[in-house]
């Protein structure tokens, strides 16, 4: 989730720097945890019990929740217009990706279109948010 530091409000400029730094750290931790989890699950010399696999598969959730907290802290620091633009963009993104994935599931089932992994939902949400943000920002210029 990107942010333009020059037009967020003076208070938010400082918060924005902290946001970028903390998000970069959280992203590095996330990548490390995912690689660690994949290595553990796929390359263990012995097979892990199901509960252990589930536990390891859930570990990337920890840095992901860290990222969510960092974003929420940043969101609360920006001014009301920027908060509105962020919120509107999330709403559009949720509607487009939610309805899109829901509709595509019918196409997968009935028209036998290729299966799309659930792992793409979150990146799609962020991408759609970015696109929506571009148009929403233009409305208030």
């Amino acid at each position, binding site marked *: 989730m990107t942010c333009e530091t020059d*037009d*967020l*409000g*003076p*208070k*938010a400029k400082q918060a924005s720097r902290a946001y970028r730094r903390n998000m970069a750290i959280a992203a590095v931790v996330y990548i490390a945890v995912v690689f660690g989890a994949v290595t553990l699950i796929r390359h263990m010399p012995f097979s892990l019990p199901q509960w252990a696999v589930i536990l390891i598969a859930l570990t990337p959730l920890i840095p992901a929740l860290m990222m969510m907290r960092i974003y929420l802290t940043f969101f609360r620091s*920006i*001014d*009301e*217009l*920027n908060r*509105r633009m962020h919120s509107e963009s999330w709403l559009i993104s949720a509607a487009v990706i939610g309805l899109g994935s829901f509709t595509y599931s019918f196409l997968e089932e009935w028209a036998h279109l290729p299966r799309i992994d659930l792992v793409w939902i979150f990146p799609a949400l962020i991408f759609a948010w970015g696109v929506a943000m571009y148009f929403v920002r233009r*409305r*208030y*210029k």
Partner: protein
Amino acid sequence: MKNRLKVLRAERNWSQADLADRLEVSRQSVNAIETGKYDPSLPLAFKIARVFGAQIEQIFSDEVETAS
């Protein structure tokens, strides 16, 4: 909602960035309020009134902006 933000700002020779700094908001917010694209919240409207030393109703009116 109509407002006199641009006039009041011009009277004080403040740029949009100057006013944004005083209000602790972005310059884009000041611009959006001035052009009527965004109506500020009540707390921000009070803050604007304080910055200009005026009453809210001296700055904002509930007349609808009509496209000319």
